[in-house]
């Protein structure tokens, strides 16, 4: 079974600075999807960014970008110009290409400090 590991339970960053959240996963599949979700204190799960494994180019969404290293099975999230509203739990998730079972990491609690 696929597993997703987020090795940083908590992180903090100063407002306007850059922070990187780590995620590694384990799979024997060649094609799959990777996601980062944000969960603010409101508890609502919000998709931040997604990546398809066969695409070499790293996904970017405004201040959010990923560093996808397929061989290393690594999928880190970089947040540039951090804002107070980025304070949240961040979950990395994996889903197989023809699979309904999305596997989540345990999460990283990010605090942006003023």
């Amino acid at each position, binding site marked *: 079974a696929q597993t997703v590991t987020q090795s940083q339970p908590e992180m903090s960053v100063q407002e306007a600075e850059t922070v990187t959240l780590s995620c590694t996963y384990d799979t024997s599949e060649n094609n799959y*999807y990777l996601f980062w979700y944000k969960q603010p204190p409101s508890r609502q799960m919000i998709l931040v960014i997604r990546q*398809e494994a066969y695409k070499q180019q790293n996904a970017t969404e405004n201040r959010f970008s990923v560093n996808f290293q397929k061989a290393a099975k690594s999928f880190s999230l970089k947040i540039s110009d951090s804002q107070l509203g980025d304070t949240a739990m961040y979950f990395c998730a994996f889903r197989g290409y023809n699979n*309904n*079972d999305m596997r*989540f990491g345990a999460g990283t609690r990010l605090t942006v400090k003023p």
Partner: protein
Amino acid sequence: DAGITQSPRHKVTETGTPVTLRCHQTENHRYMYWYRQDPGHGLRLIHYSYGVKDTDKGEVSDGYSVSRSKTEDFLLTLESATSSQTSVYFCAISESAGEYNEQFFGPGTRLTVL
């Protein structure tokens, strides 16, 4: 925002009692999912549905059953609640399981089993 509602939003119940959580969508999406969220585990899939009356088990299905008699409603039932089922439960929907399809999440239900 995707039209997903969950009811109730909060529930406290006693061990051994039956509990049913409801997820309702207005998006006419084919796929619906139930997850539970626990500290240190992220989100874990309980059951999912790929159409009316079509359901399948997820990673942590023991002690739970589901039903989907209409496209818009997906019910999660705890036949005899236990304290280990105290959790936050999220419903999610997606148009399809393959490709890039994003899962949209409901607001969550906090269930406490005493």
